[in-house]
């Protein structure tokens, strides 16, 4: 008699909500990894998420946890307010690159510098997705967007910001790494990193951030498969994957 094994199901951390993300977008993958980690750590009941403004503005629809919705870029400040009065809760922000690296640069840098004991999931897909694909601080040199139609000219439009590298210089940061979502192996590595980031928080070891290189097929104007290739061939070389800061105490964590 044949037995059926359930190999794939909606994690407990998710609500029963159809996705609003475009086909081929890796936001869904990132969401799932966060939900799985929160479930595996058994912290769904005490988690409060902070949603950004951008494509993931509706992040609060998907996670089966309490959620608040921040103004554009202000999620780290809002998370600071939540965490400081509820230090025993797990508090995370989920932010895109327009939100975190453009309008919210002040909030993220100072939350990291203060060593706020929060976790930041940072989606880097090299453009402003929600408003239709404008240039972001993370847009690659020469990359075409709706507001850099001839390709990003660094002479007039400046250089991309490498967020993980930059934040890793701050003493308040406990855990700061960059991962990618372009293939199964990297997705598994991303999940481990997300777990470590939340473990950092649950042990009170300071600010934690995972930068995730992600796709945006709709605004990049290429297929989902080619988007994954684009991440591998163009984004990973510019934004090297790696551990930018892992404090000694965090290195001792065994899961």
């Amino acid at each position, binding site marked *: 008699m044949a037995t059926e094994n359930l190999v794939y199901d909606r994690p407990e951390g998710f609500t029963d909500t159809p996705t609003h993300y475009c086909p081929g977008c890796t936001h869904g993958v990132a969401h799932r990894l966060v939900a799985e980690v929160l479930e595996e750590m058994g912290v769904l*009941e005490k988690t409060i998420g902070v949603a950004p403004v951008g494509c993931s503005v509706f992040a609060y629809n998907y996670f*089966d946890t309490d*959620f608040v*919705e*921040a103004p554009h870029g202000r999620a780290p*400040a*809002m998370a*600071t*307010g*939540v965490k400081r009065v509820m230090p025993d809760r797990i508090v995370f922000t989920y932010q895109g690159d327009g939100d975190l690296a453009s309008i919210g640069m002040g909030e993220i840098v100072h939350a990291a510098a203060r060593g706020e004991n929060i976790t930041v999931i940072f989606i880097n897909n090299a453009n402003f997705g929600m408003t239709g694909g404008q240039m972001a601080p993370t847009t690659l040199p020469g990359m075409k967007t709706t507001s850099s139609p001839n390709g990003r000219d660094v002479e007039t439009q400046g250089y991309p910001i490498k967020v993980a590298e930059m934040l890793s210089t701050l003493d308040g940061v406990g855990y700061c790494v960059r991962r990618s979502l372009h293939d199964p192996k990297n997705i598994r590595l991303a999940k481990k990193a997300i777990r470590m980031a939340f473990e950092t928080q649950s042990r009170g070891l300071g600010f934690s951030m995972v930068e995730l290189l992600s796709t945006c097929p709709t605004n990049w104007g290429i297929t989902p498969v080619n988007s994954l290739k684009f991440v591998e061939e163009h984004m990973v070389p510019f934004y090297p994957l790696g551990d930018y800061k892992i404090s000694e105490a965090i290195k001792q964590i065994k899961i």
Partner: protein
Amino acid sequence: MPKELWKGNEAIAEAAVRAGLEAYFGYPITPQTEILEYLSRRMPELGRTFVQAESELGAINMVYGAACTGVRVMSSSSSPGMSLMMEGISYIAGTEVPAVLVNVMRGGPGLGNIAPAQGDYNQAVHGGGHGDYQPIVLAPASVQEAIDLTALSFDLAEKYRAICMVILDGCVGQMMEPAEMPEMKPVHRENWDWNTDAKMGKRKRRVLSSIYIEPAEEEKMNLRVLNRWRTIEAKEVRYKEYFLDDAEIVVVGFGTAGRIALSAVREARAEGIKVGLLRPITVSPFPYKVIDQLTARADAFLVTEMNSGQMLEDVRLAVKGRVPVEFYGRLGGVVPFPDEILNEIHRMAKSKLSLDVHPRDAWLERMAHA
């Protein structure tokens, strides 16, 4: 409690602590910095939260986050800093969470100066942030009143899930007066049915957001807030009357301008002029009805402010052109002397007043010929 000598800003800080303030987030700016400094000592001493934010933007969003958890939370600033907070203020209003904000107003616009002014009346009372919302705005005229209204502001904010703003000018913030502090209230976390303090195995998840993506839903929210505002208008109007029983001239002023006007009114009374003072304490909700009733028996109004006549327009709305309204203001951080207001009372008592000229135009005309 016995009376003690308190500086306005520090008195506000201590009053907030005694009202159960659990978290304060702020940024230095003159002339309110003593609130921040005082709480940087006081809050940690009591095991409560104090964070000096990276900016007023940071501060107001920390307030927003903490407010969502349902605790008593406050920030304070002065005019340019309040402008920076307007984004967060609109979001807090749109999310219907309670928060207390203190604005120790200074001369403006722009960087202006650090002298006492009332130029943020319109920003506080008539909006400031985007969208449809109205905060409750309280205007103390003394250190004692600043203490009492700060304590009250937390109750009002929670009762109506609204922003309650205390607006004062640098005079009240900086001066020292004998005042009595309320008893220390312990920190108390209410069991709200709306706050996002995590499920904790007790309930379904909650989301707090100012997003209503369906216009019809946003309209419902707008109407809910508006109807709540009508209750606030019906129940929470506060003001102080002085010598109004037989007053033929009614002076209207809030905060420091109202207090200075009181000196002028007392002097005029000693001279036998039938003049009284109405000092709005809630400038929002504004005491329209009180002024409406006074219009039936007063000959004229004199509005006096430390701005270019912002509350003046609200007084005119209440008077509805039935009797003359005159205006006297000082701007840019200049504080009027009682004599200046007394001169206006003398002029009004002696001359025939016009209903036809806008009071601000007439005032500017007089200034030009002074």
